[in-house]
């Protein structure tokens, strides 16, 4: 049995500025993994480079033991919500159906089975009543749920999600984390770019601390420590001290 994802010596750059430098890690199956790091640390870039959306300078990515390009059907992707134009003329169900496109090949169109599956996926994120709603009329949280439903429709074994919790209301955050836990129960692996340090210990089995280079990676209890966070967020200690009373520091007292 191969690991869902193995990344070896991955580097990427915009123009000449390196944004990812020699990143290596191996993901265990059936885990929820959080990617944590300051702004500009290369978190989104890491996901996009794994997916081949940004050319890599060096390194190797294998998905269940094979190169990414031959394993696309095993991967579901949730881009950042702001990356698309929500005024596009289409409705929620149609966006979820787009998750099926990868499986349809060059000429086939989504059929009744695909529509039924898309409806089920919308129901799983609590959006069944909004299937026919024009996407610009959904709230930010609802849009994010539609994106998650679309990833579910991809019916993948490894999910990569770029800040699914960004700018959503509390109800949506709860719906999303319930869904992630359900995916985990089905032995799926979910990698999430995450910003909110206060929820890390509650949500994730493992964390990956990133700031251009890999700072630390492993089970949340052992890796999510004040020392590691200090190093990852170097030079932004004020930010960490504000958070100090909340979570990462209290970990050490125990």
């Amino acid at each position, binding site marked *: 049995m191969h690991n869902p994802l193995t990344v070896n010596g991955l580097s990427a750059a915009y123009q000449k500025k390196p944004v990812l430098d020699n990143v290596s890690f191996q993901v265990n199956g059936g885990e929820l993994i959080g990617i944590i790091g300051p702004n500009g640390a290369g978190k989104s870039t890491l996901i996009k480079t794994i997916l081949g959306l940004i050319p890599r300078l060096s390194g190797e990515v294998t998905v269940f033991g094979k190169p990414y390009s031959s394993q696309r059907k095993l991967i579901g*992707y949730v881009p950042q919500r702001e*990356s698309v*134009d929500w005024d596009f003329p289409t*409705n929620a169900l149609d966006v979820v159906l787009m998750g099926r*496109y*990868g499986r*349809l090949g060059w000429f086939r169109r989504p059929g009744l089975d695909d529509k039924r599956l898309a409806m089920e996926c919308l129901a799983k994120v609590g959006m069944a009543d909004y299937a026919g709603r024009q996407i610009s009329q959904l709230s930010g949280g609802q849009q994010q749920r539609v994106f998650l439903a679309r990833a579910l429709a991809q019916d993948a074994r490894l999910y990569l999600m770029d800040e699914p919790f960004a700018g959503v209301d509390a109800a949506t955050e709860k719906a999303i984390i319930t869904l992630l836990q359900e995916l985990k129960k089905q032995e799926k692996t979910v990698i999430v770019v995450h910003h909110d340090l206060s929820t890390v210990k509650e949500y994730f089995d493992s964390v990956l601390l990133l700031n251009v280079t890999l700072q630390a990676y492993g089970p949340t209890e052992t890796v999510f420590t004040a020392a590691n966070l200090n190093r990852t967020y170097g030079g932004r200690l004020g930010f960490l001290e504000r958070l100090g009373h909340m979570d990462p520091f209290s970990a050490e007292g125990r």
Partner: protein
Amino acid sequence: MTDFWILLTGSLVAACCAILGVFLVLRKMALVGDAISHSVLPGIAIAFLLSGTRDSAFMLIGAAVLGLVTVFLIQLFHQSGVQSDASIGIVFTALFAVGVILISLNARQVDLDLDCVLYGEIAYTHWNTISLLGIDTIPKAVWMLGFTLLLITAVIFLFYKQFKLCAFDPALAAAVGIPVALFHYLLMGLVSMATVSSFESVGAILVVGMLIIPPATAYLLTEKLGVMIGLSVVTGIVSTFIGYYAAVVLDASIAGCMVTAALALFVLAFLFSPSQGVIARYVSRRKAALRHTAS
């Protein structure tokens, strides 16, 4: 018969441009359409100089190649750090200038009129007939536009889901293995062909109006992509008819009147669209305000 051919030519131009324009507008690439319509000029001139004829097939190929070169150069400059609007401006004006030079240098030998390229003259298109498939009464422009429209319809129909996903979410498209760059260049190649098929009728400048205004109108009226394409074609064809009869009454440029008619329809949609129109928005705001004060 003249009326019929002019209206048919105009409607074919409108249909070709309206379908492709929808994808340009949704991808926020309206200006790239503008750039292509100008920079196919050297392609037309080179094809003409090489072949020595105004043979449509050579022109279509020449224009398609130059259209792709345009898009490629714009991307090349942009990736090397030039602002995207600046690189569009640089590429299309420079290529257009090369086209103007090529045509003016050879103006004496060749029967390719700069005015005609720039402004078009739809009123003359029906005189220029060509014998094909044993029929010799159909104008060349109608053959060319008919072929282009058929090709556009076939390509968009076959690859509808790819074009849609590339327009809405290119990152997901690439992640699931759709060759995004291929469909990008395919769309741009079709835009170039539509432009060059249309330029004899409406000219390189006004063709942009037919590419952008009807889709922008349709965008205000619907929330479904398929319906948007249909409405865009209908608006384009209605503009053609209104424009033609207005031109007859005013004794003015037909192409100019067609684009002005398209603009008039856009303004109507802008004001009266049931969902996004200025008036509908005003009314719903007033209602909300009234409810607010009543409660």
